[in-house]
Each structure stands twice: as structure tokens, then as C-alpha cells.
């Protein structure tokens, strides 16, 4: 075994590179800047393009143009930049433009704290678009996840023609960690599908009601259309309620109905555990330490670490909570994903531990909250 030392941000860049990303545009912002820096080293020598936009809006705009012209594209920012991306995120959702968007979260609100970590954008990533259609959000826990999940993110963006978020955190992005790169197994790479057969190309025609339209690039031999307006299969504005409804339903179902193919998670179950911790991101590593500490004691713990946050893997969560007396949700904000867990679990009581002060939630804090939950 040999180990490399790299930041989560560098791992995202390398993962993107190996996933075939050859277009990156970004605007410098701590704690995401080192993704831009690394892409600047990786792409130009590989016939790729890496540019710094005049602002975040331009950066994601470049990416959408390049993606529609056939390239795998990625951008990276932090919360203040996600705010500026919003209009183009909506565009990518509604007009089915593949793109990977990295949010290296920092403590908010607003410009907040540039060098403090947080998972404060978890609901923002889901709902920060007009129209409210679903998005895919993957949350890495460490440098290895940054590498692998980024490759998955590209596959999902290509397969479903949609934006895919990587919800990282300063505590992962700017922390250097050892990684056995040779042990990394990337998924087989997926390319957006071209149409089959000789029928005229219809840009937004999917073969089934929950499917994804085949892709032809702008600038290719076959003329292609793209529009941010509410459109029918041919890519022109439509006011036909039936066509609109079919399209919105398809945009929803193409993600929701295939969720089981991209529900990523880790489960650490201890025999005899009465409590299941549900967490994600950097915080799930504190939970994992707590689980390790309590293993073999009279009060062991289990952990469900979610790596697909959106669409919310409801079936998985319902299945895994079965048999546990206590459910404890831990996250680095004042209570965002816990609302989803409570909604899914209905009448079950859910204990919550959140913190939003720029410091990591510690294993000891988690153990204390678990003990409180047990005593109630």
C-alpha cells in the first residue's frame, strides 16, 4: 500500500478529471478555490479548458454553454456562489443540461465565515431553484468520497441530463488527508446517450414518460436547440397544459424513479445497538468514532451515513431504522435534514444534535446526546 496526501478539493478535481471532465469554469472563493487551482493544472495540458469567470454567474454560464456543446463540465463554489448560480441551476434542471456543481460549504448566512465549515446549504441546494423540481445532491465524508462521488456525479449528470451537486464542506475540502489512490475504484464511465435510428432529432423527446431525451451537441452535424423557456419536445415555447404537465412530471420522475440506482450510503451496525445515528458529510465521521468507541460496551451504537441526500432515500431510511429504539440525527447546522427524517418517520420521536459555530461536532457530544435520548 502507498498513500498520497491531498485535500478533498484536490480529490474532487482528480475525480472529475478521471470522469472525463474537460471543461471547468469557476470564480475564486474560499474554501472552494483549490478546486479551480487544481483544474487549472489538470485541464489545459489535456486539451481541456479551465477558465476563471468574471463572476459566479458567468462561470456557470460558460459551463452550461460548453455542456450543451458536448463537453463534461464542472464548476465549484461555496454558499455565496450557489446563491448567484441559482437562476442557472433552474435552467439546467428545466432544460436538462448535464453539469456537476460543487458546493464546498462554509459557515453562513451570507458571506459568513470564509474559513469555517458548515453543512448549512443542505436545504438550499435542494430548493434553491425556481420551480422546485428535484435535484441530485451527493455528500462526501472524506477525501476518498470526494474522488469517487465526483465520478458518480458525472455519471448521473450524463445519464439523467441534470445538475448534480457535491455537497462538500470546508472541513473536507481544505483538510489534507492520506489516500490510497490505487485502492480507488471508479465506476464505469457513462456518456450522455445519442439518439438511435434515423428519425429526425427532436431535442427534448424522451422515449418513455420517465426517461431522458437523447443528446445531440450544439455545433454538431445535426441542428440542436436549447431553451430556458417552458418547452415541448421540440424545444419551442409551449402553452399546452398537457405537454407542460408531461414534461414537469418526467423531469421529476426521471430522478425519483431511478433513485435506487444511486442511493449511496454506509451502514455501520453493531450487534445489540439500541440507537441508530443518522448523519452525513464530515459529521458522520465524528459519529463513526462514537460508534467505534461504544463498540463492545454495554451500550453499542449503529450509524447510517447517507451519501445521497437528495432525492431523499426514503425507502432506505425506513428500512434501516427498523428495530432501533432511538433515532439520533446529527448535522452541522441548526436542523435541516432532520426535518426530512422526521417527516419520513411520522410519529417516531427523533433526537437531534446540531451545531453551527464553525467547529466540528465531536464524538463526545454525540455520545452525550445518545445518552440523553436513552434516558427519555
Amino acid at each position, binding site marked *: *500500500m*502507498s498513500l*498520497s*496526501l491531498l485535500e478533498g478539493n484536490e480529490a474532487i478535481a*482528480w475525480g472529475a478529471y478521471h470522469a472525463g471532465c474537460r*471543461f471547468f469554469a469557476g470564480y475564486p472563493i*474560499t474554501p472552494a478555490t483549490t478546486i479551480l487551482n487544481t483544474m487549472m*493544472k489538470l485541464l*489545459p495540458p489535456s486539451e481541456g*479548458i479551465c*477558465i476563471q*469567470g*468574471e*463572476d459566479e454567474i*458567468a462561470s*456557470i*454560464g*460558460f*459551463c*452550461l*454553454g*460548453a455542456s*450543451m*456543446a*458536448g*463537453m463534461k*463540465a464542472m464548476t465549484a463554489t461555496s454558499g455565496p456562489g450557489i446563491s448567484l448560480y441559482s*437562476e*442557472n441551476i433552474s*435552467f439546467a434542471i428545466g432544460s436538462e443540461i448535464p453539469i456537476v456543481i460543487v458546493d464546498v460549504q462554509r459557515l453562513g448566512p451570507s458571506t459568513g465565515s470564509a*474559513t469555517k465549515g458548515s453543512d448549512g446549504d443542505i436545504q438550499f441546494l435542494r430548493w434553491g431553484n425556481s420551480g422546485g423540481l428535484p435535484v441530485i445532491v451527493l455528500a462526501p465524508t472524506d477525501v476518498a468520497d470526494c474522488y469517487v462521488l465526483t465520478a458518480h456525479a458525472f455519471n448521473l449528470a450524463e445519464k439523467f441530463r441534470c445538475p448534480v451537486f457535491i455537497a462538500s464542506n470546508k*472541513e473536507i475540502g*481544505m*483538510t*489534507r*488527508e*492520506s489516500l490510497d*489512490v*490505487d485502492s480507488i475504484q471508479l465506476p464505469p464511465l457513462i456518456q450522455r446517450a445519442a439518439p438511435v435510428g434515423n428519425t429526425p432529432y427532436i431535442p427534448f423527446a424522451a422515449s418513455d414518460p420517465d426517461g431522458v431525451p437523447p443528446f445531440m*451537441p*450544439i*455545433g*454538431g452535424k*445535426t*441542428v*440542436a*436547440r*436549447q*431553451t*430556458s*423557456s417552458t418547452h415541448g419536445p421540440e*424545444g419551442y415555447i409551449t402553452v399546452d397544459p398537457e405537454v407542460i404537465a408531461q414534461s414537469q412530471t418526467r423531469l421529476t420522475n426521471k430522478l425519483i424513479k431511478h433513485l435506487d440506482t444511486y442511493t449511496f450510503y454506509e451502514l455501520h451496525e453493531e450487534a445489540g445497538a439500541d440507537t441508530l445515528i443518522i448523519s452525513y458529510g*464530515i459529521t458522520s*465521521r*465524528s459519529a463513526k*468514532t462514537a460508534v467505534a468507541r461504544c463498540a463492545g460496551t454495554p451500550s453499542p451504537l449503529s450509524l447510517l451515513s447517507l451519501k445521497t441526500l437528495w432525492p431523499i432515500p426514503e425507502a432506505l431510511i425506513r428500512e434501516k431504522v427498523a428495530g432501533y429504539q432511538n433515532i439520533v440525527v446529527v448535522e452541522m447546522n441548526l436542523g435541516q435534514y432532520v426535518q426530512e427524517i422526521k417527516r419520513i418517520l411520522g410519529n417516531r420521536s427523533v433526537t437531534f444534535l446540531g451545531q453551527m459555530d464553525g467547529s*466540528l461536532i*465531536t*464524538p*463526545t457530544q454525540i455520545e452525550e446526546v445518545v445518552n440523553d435520548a436513552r434516558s427519555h
Partner: protein
Amino acid sequence: MMPDLINRNRPPAYCPGCSHEVVTRSLNSALQHMGVDANQVVIVSDIGCSGLFDTFFSTHAFHGLHGRALTYATGIKLAQPNLHVIVTMGDGGLGIGGAHLLSTCRRNIDITLLILNNFNYGMTGGQFSATTPPEAQVGSGFLNQIEKPIDACRVLRAAGAGYVSRVSAYQSDLAGEMEQAIQFNGFSAMDIWGICPGRYTRRNKVTYKTIQSAIDSLPPFRGPVSENIREEYGSQYRQKAGVQEPPPPLLKVKKRFPALFDERKEILILGSAGQRIITAGEVLCYAGLTCGQHASQKNDYPITVLRGHSASEVILSPGKIDFAGIAAPDVVLALGQEGIDRKTTLLNTFVEDTFVLVDTNVDIPDCKGIRHRVDFKAKKIKRQDMAMASLGILAHHQKLISLEMLEAALRIRFQGKALEGALALVRRAGDIA
């Protein structure tokens, strides 16, 4: 004659008398005269009535968000360098996308921008735009009377556009002017003055003649701007990218020494900017890698360079590192006052056998641990060398790392004179300790 590029299924439909219709026909004529096929052109349209252009052509088409057309066009052009990329934008998009306009001029990417300048927001009801004259009657009350309109051409030239022309939508050679702009190898922009009969001319007198006389009264803009002529962005980019060195592969460190410990170790390095605290933390991680340990490094420093605190939290562990924070440090290097003051809350985490190496010139509050004082100044160790020397001291004490691990780490991290200096420093650290 090359094919007509007007979309037969979607013929142009504007308000009666709208100059956009004339511009659409002229653009079609220009493209026809150039002899390009539908798949060699993309129309990227902005917002408002200029945002309808893409639908009226049988070419590639891209319609996006208000004011952002130039950003999409830039991405498309970089990905498809042989495509003719034409952006249609009104005076509305000109204002809302101002930052993109300036940057596109500066980049000089081979895109043609047609500004359909009709002095108001037609589609939303005739509100004032960035080019509305103060004397005009518009749908924004008196607001246009107290803002100075911009002259798009002067802005374009000042921002570095290589080709700028100001024309009337009604001049007879409009198609020829467009062709020249499209053929220009770099960013070209045309400020095309026209009439919005739906909104603007209902309350403002604008005719073909008033447009022409207004243009004639201004300094002319007739194409190439000599002061801005330079190589096109994309070709420069590809040329410069083509000679970049490929990045080195990720450095891999094999275990080559037996570790001196068999459980997780936490190290806290506290100092000030300029003491190379972060570099020392990185070297410590590499030293850990040489004995097969996993490593993590979390740093804390302000936005200033060479001023303020600098702190590094390093964890070395035989197994994967989960919680990457400091719970109970095994070793603390307290080398600079600012770092110590910044991390006072961490002092509570020190335990009885925490090894605390303290520079005698800093004050550290009462806390647990075994103190080991070093007078770096007396030993003539420079400020920027204290952190690295401290690693040498640890190595001489066989504390977490050995000298051979440290030297191996330095060989990974440094080269040339920097390496020689670092090796000499840690080798003499035994005398300091």
C-alpha cells in the same frame, strides 16, 4: 444561392413595424451570402424580444437567462471553435449583463454580438433601459430622467472590443455590415438602433430619419478598432494550453520504516504567520506516511499573509482517521503567541502526558502536560525555522517520528537548496533540544 436559414416552421413574428424583423431578415441575408449551413451557426439569444431570434432560424439555437447570453456563447465557442456564434441582445441585456459585456470585450473571443438597441424594455411594458435618453417618456415614471444613458459603442471600445460598429436597422447595407462583423476573428459587436412600435414610439417620436441623424451626429464606429486588434482568445488559449507541462501524477508514499506508535496520535502546532507552521504540519504528515500511518491536516489561518495566527492540527493513525479534530493532543508545539492566543479553548484538551514544546519567548497559560522549553533565539534558530526545528527535536527524542522518517519526509516535500537547508536544520536540532 445557399439555403435560407429562416425557420420555415416558425416564421418571424414581431409587432407590426418592429425593427427586429428587418434585423432578422438582414442576418439571414448575411449568413446566406457567407454560404454557411444551418449546422455551422448557433444563435444565442438573450432576454426580451431579442430573445425570440433563435426560434426564427433553422440553425443551432440557445436561449437562456436574461443578460447571460454572452456567457453561454463563450462556453459554446470554446467547446466548438469552428462554429459561428452569434448573440442577439437588446439594450435590456446590455444593462443586466454589463459585467459579461465588459469581460467578453476584454477576452476578445470570436463571438458576434448584435445589440438590438430600441431604447426601452419592450416586452415588459416599455420601462427604461441603460440606453433610454433622459427626455424620453417611458414606463418607469421619471426614473430615466435622473440616470445617464450609456453609449454602448464607447463602452465596448473602452473595454477592449476589436470590432465595434454603430448602425441603423434601416440602413441599406445592414446585411453587409453584419457579414463583416461575423467574419471578424475576435469579439465583434454591432449597436443596431431601431424602433419599438409596440411600446417606445407610442410616446416618443422615433423614425428612420431621426435614428440616422442621431447616429450621424455621434462619433462614428465603423468596425475594426485599431487600438484593440489582437489575437483571438480561443486560439491564444489553445496555443498556451498546448505548451503546458502535464501535471505530475499524485505522489505516492510507500511505508519504509516501522512506526514508533500503534495508536492514533494528535499533534497541535501553534504559531504565527511566517513561521511555516502549515509546511511543518505537512512534513509531519509525510513523515507519518513513511511509516505507514494515515494522516490528516487541518489548518487555521487568517486572510492576511505574514500577519496573524497560524495553527495546524495533524493526526497520525495506524487506521483510517474518522474524527479529524483534536480531542486530546499527544504533542503540542507552541511556537508563536498569536497561535496560542487563538486556540486557547484547545488548551483544555491537553492531558497529563501531553508533550508541550514551548518557545521560551511565548507565554502559554496554565494547562496540563509535560513542558519542554526551548530558547530558539539563543540557539540562533530563525523565526521561520522554529517549526521545522521542532520536528527535528521530536525526531531526536524519538517522539512519534525518527530522524530517518523526518529526513525522508523532507526529501518528499523539498528539493535543491531548500532541501539541503531543511536537512541541515533538523540534523542540528539534537543540539538544540
